[in-house]
Structure formats: structure tokens, C-alpha cells
């Protein structure tokens, strides 16, 4: 391992949200309907890590928890410049809510051992919670800064970042720490063909629940470690929406009339 920042990037494979189909009658998500991709926010996290590596040196380990096919996201991360990839996959990890997910990830990080910085995307496009990052930080008892949109400076023991909380704040954080990044922080690069080919042959380490047994409590993984249950899924109803389309020459007049009636025009 070379000198510099030891960085861990947490990524998740998600369905392409523009294509995924929802079965409205049965209230379920047809995950097979869409291709899988790396959560777009996580690509910004990875790009942040690669830039640190380029500027001050470092070693980037990318970790994902998911089914075996999540391996393709890890391979993509290697092609984009990560040095090491670890897949956490086991039926005991399945059915995890954010608490169990973050605990499992934190346990894997403990097994990895040394790190200076953990980087996550601000949220995922499927879960939409943004909770896993700060929860991982808490499990590891390190500070975190959420919604980082800019890195002002970095040394091996501290970062100066801008956090976008609506208004933007300058925050200095001592390492080791965790940051979650927004899409504004950078534009993720595409992997080169050469690196894609190289990553095809690269080794992806696969860790099961047993592999983590010495670093955490098994009962806090997966469904067993989850405290929340989704018991019903419904689809946003647009029933209340009028869907009234105005046609013809006087369409604008009709719209103005409606806006007046509803009190939007004094």
C-alpha cells in the first residue's frame, strides 16, 4: 500500500430509475425490468476519491453490499481507478434496512482496518434515505460532514470542505472522517477501454457474514438486524389531479380564468 490517504468508497448497485417498471396492481417493484447501474451519486464519491489519489496520493478501496451481480459495479469502479474492491454478499445480509446496512458496512470497514477517509454519495436513487453514510460514521465513532459540494483543501490529517445545507458552510474536519458528497462536487470520468479490460480480470474479494464474524455481531446484519419493515407499497395517486387540457385560441384565457378562480391572481 502506498503512502497517502487510505480511502474507502461505499457504493450501491441500483436499478436504472428511468426504466424501472412498477406493478401498480400488485404493489411491487419489478427489479428485473431495468438494467442495473451504480447509484449515480456514488460515482461522484468515487471520483472524489480518485482525485484525492491524484493530488495527494492514496489507495482507494471500494466496498458494496448486495447480491452477487453487484460485482459488475465494483468492476466498473476498478476501471475508474479504484485499487481494491470488496463485495459483501450473503443471504444473511439480505432484507437490511439502513441501520443493518450501515452496521454491516461499518463491520466490513473494521475488518479492512486502516482508513483515513470514507466517502459516500449523499443518497441512493432507490432508497432515497441518505442515512447510511452518517450511520456508518456513528458506528465507527468518527465525525462526518454531509452534502459536501466542494473540497477546498486536503492534507493527510484534515480536510477543508464546503457543505451544502441550503446555505453553504465551510467546515474543517479532522481525519479519520466520513463525507457524503452531492452531484455538484465533480463530474465523474468515464473509464478508459484499457482499464475496462484490465478490470475484467481483476480480483474482487467476496466477504460473507462469516468473514465478518470476528468484527461485529451477526444478529445485527440483514433482516434480523433491521428495525423497520415496509409492509405496504402504494403508488402516488394522481386521482385528485384534474388533468384538464385547454385547447384552441382561448386556451390561455381559460387558464387565466382558472388561476383567478383559485385565487392565484389578485
Amino acid at each position: 500500500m502506498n503512502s497517502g490517504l487510505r480511502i474507502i468508497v461505499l457504493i450501491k448497485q441500483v436499478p436504472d430509475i428511468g426504466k424501472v417498471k412498477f406493478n401498480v396492481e400488485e404493489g411491487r417493484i419489478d427489479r428485473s425490468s431495468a438494467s442495473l447501474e451504480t447509484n449515480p451519486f456514488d460515482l461522484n464519491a468515487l471520483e472524489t476519491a480518485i482525485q484525492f489519489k491524484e493530488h495527494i496520493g492514496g489507495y482507494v478501496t471500494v466496498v458494496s453490499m448486495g447480491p452477487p451481480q453487484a460485482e459488475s459495479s465494483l468492476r466498473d469502479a476498478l476501471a475508474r481507478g479504484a485499487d481494491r474492491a470488496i463485495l459483501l454478499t450473503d443471504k444473511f445480509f439480505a432484507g437490511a434496512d439502513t441501520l443493518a446496512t450501515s452496521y454491516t458496512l461499518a463491520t466490513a470497514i473494521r475488518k479492512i482496518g486502516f482508513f483515513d477517509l470514507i466517502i459516500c454519495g449523499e443518497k441512493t436513487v432507490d432508497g432515497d434515505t441518505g442515512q447510511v453514510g452518517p450511520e456508518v460514521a456513528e458506528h465507527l465513532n468518527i465525525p462526518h460532514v454531509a452534502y459536501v459540494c466542494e473540497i477546498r483543501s486536503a492534507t493527510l490529517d484534515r480536510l477543508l470542505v464546503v457543505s451544502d445545507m441550503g446555505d453553504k458552510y465551510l467546515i474543517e474536519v479532522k481525519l479519520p472522517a466520513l463525507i457524503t458528497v452531492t452531484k455538484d462536487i465533480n463530474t465523474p470520468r468515464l473509464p478508459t477501454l484499457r482499464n475496462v479490460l484490465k478490470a475484467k480480470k481483476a480480483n474482487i474479494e467476496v466477504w460473507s457474514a462469516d468473514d465478518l464474524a470476528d468484527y461485529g455481531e451477526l444478529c445485527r446484519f440483514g433482516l434480523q438486524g433491521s428495525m423497520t419493515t415496509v409492509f405496504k407499497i402504494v403508488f402516488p395517486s394522481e386521482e385528485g389531479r384534474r388533468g384538464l387540457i385547454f385547447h384552441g385560441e382561448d386556451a390561455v384565457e381559460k387558464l387565466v380564468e382558472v388561476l383567478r378562480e383559485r385565487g392565484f391572481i389578485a
Partner: protein
Amino acid sequence: MNQPVKNGVMVYAEQEEGIVHPVSFELLGKGRELADRLNIELWSVLLGYRVRDKAETLIHYGADRVFLYDDQMLEEFDVVKYKHVLVELVREVAPQLFLIGATPLGRSLAPRIAAALNTGLTADCIDIQIDDRGEIVQIRPAFTGNIIAHIKTRSRPIMATVRYRVMKPLPRDNSRRGKIVERSPPKLPDTGLKFLGEVSTRSVNLAEADIIVSGGRGLKKKEDLNMLKELASLLGGVVGVSRPLVDDGWISKDHQVGFSGNTVKPKLYIACGVSGSPQHMAGMRDSEVIVAINIDRSAPIFRIADYGIVGDLYEVVPKLIEALKRLKENE
């Protein structure tokens, strides 16, 4: 009420520079309703420096008891310090339910508390209900707003962050009485976080806007945003945009509506040349009235619109501006 009552509903009162975020009053409104149905007290917790007078305000908005930590150490929002204080309090008084605003600050703080307490946390709720078995149900959108999930939590406290502008605050009642419990924060370690001040203030706060006129890819050039600005100002609103316009550098991100921008819930949302990607609709579908102006009748935005005009925004918007100006002149 001098007896320590256990297991109330707790509401986190978010404040910044002594100003209580309005989502806190909304949560007190919802919290009051839930506490009354469960026949328990409504609690609130306020952290900050020189915020004592705000504790009274929380009572006026429905709290029975306010836990107040007023200390210079809490002047800045240090997520780790705030977490320490709140975890200690929750361990001691054991609320059944702990509600926090789903603001950027709340969404950074709540997960740390939940992880420390090893309890379930539901993000970005749009409703909290009690079902016919008396159990608390959290309701939230997921999959970029494509589904609504109903969630139960088996650990205590049940924790949830709740979206701004979905709950109604109670009218302020200055005659309401409650108890303020003053506390000192525990000794707080150096957290490794240092606050070096504000870098920039947002140019517009879309989350607060009542009327938003928004533009999308149907706009041909940056200057055409002026047309939407004019329409917005005639209606007393502000301009929003979909993501591509921000990516192209036409306008600041403060104006971006959608999954990676601002979630908005104005009274009126006029989408001009916005086709309605899932990411955009996730940020505005809860608007009270949605008007769509788009040349393409099959654009997804029409599916969630109350009113629509199928037409070229370059013809429709100027006509609309003209009509509004005429109305103003005739006043």
C-alpha cells in the same frame, strides 16, 4: 405534570442563529395530534445558545414540555455534539416516537442518533399515522418518488425525519402553558469538526415559495429564462428549473427542482417546457396545483398536471404574460 412522565412524543426543534425552522412547528402540530390519540405528552427538545425565549414559543405551538439545552458549546451546529446531547436525553426520558425535520440538518443528524440508539429511522416521511391496531405507521416516498412505502418500526424510539410543508402547524396560542426543563449538556469531547462560517447564502429558497414558474429543456437559450422570470414576478413567485439548465450553467443550483436539487411544495407550480423526468417529478409532484405547458401532449408532466396547455411555450408564455399585465392594468 411535575411527575416525570415517560414515553411521550418528542419533536426536535431545529434552530439556526436563534431562528426556529418552521418545520419544527409543523412537527409540533402533528406531534400534538399523535400524542392526544396515544394519550401521552408532547415533548420538544431545543439546543443552542441564547435561545431560551424560543422554548416558550414551542409551548405556544403545542408542546407540553420542552427540554432546553442553552449553552455556548451548542452555538454552532456540530452534528456530533448535538448527537451526544440528544442520545443522552432519549436514553433518559425514552420517548415512543422522535420526529425530526427532514431538512439537510435533520437528515445529517437523525441517522447518527438512530445508529447510536440502535433504533429504526424512516427518512423523509410525508405522513405519520396510527393504524387501527394503535401502531405508528410512517409513510414515505421511495424510488425517486415513484412509490409510497408504509413502514413500521419494531424498536423504540420510533424515529422519523419528516418533510417540510407537509404537516400543518397549530395556530399559535400564547396562553398555552407547559413546562420548560432546563438542562446542561454533558461534557462534550473535541469532535474533530470546526465551523469556519458561511460561504454563500442561497439566492432563492424554493422550499419556501408559494408560486414557482419553472423551465426545462423546452427553453432554447439562457436569455429566455427572463420570460419565465417576468411571468413569475407577475404572479408573485420565483423561477425554478429542471436539472439540465443548471448543468448547462444557465442558472444557479438554488433554482433546481428535483431529486438532486430542491423538493418543493408550492401552492402553484407552472412547468414550462418541462417534460417531467422521474427525477424532476420527485421534487414537485406534491405541489398543490400543477400547470403544464408543453408542446408534446405525451410528455409525462401532463399525467400529474391539474391544468395543461399543449403548445409552444414561446407562444403560450408571452400570451399569459400579456393577459396578466392586462388584468393588472384594469385593477
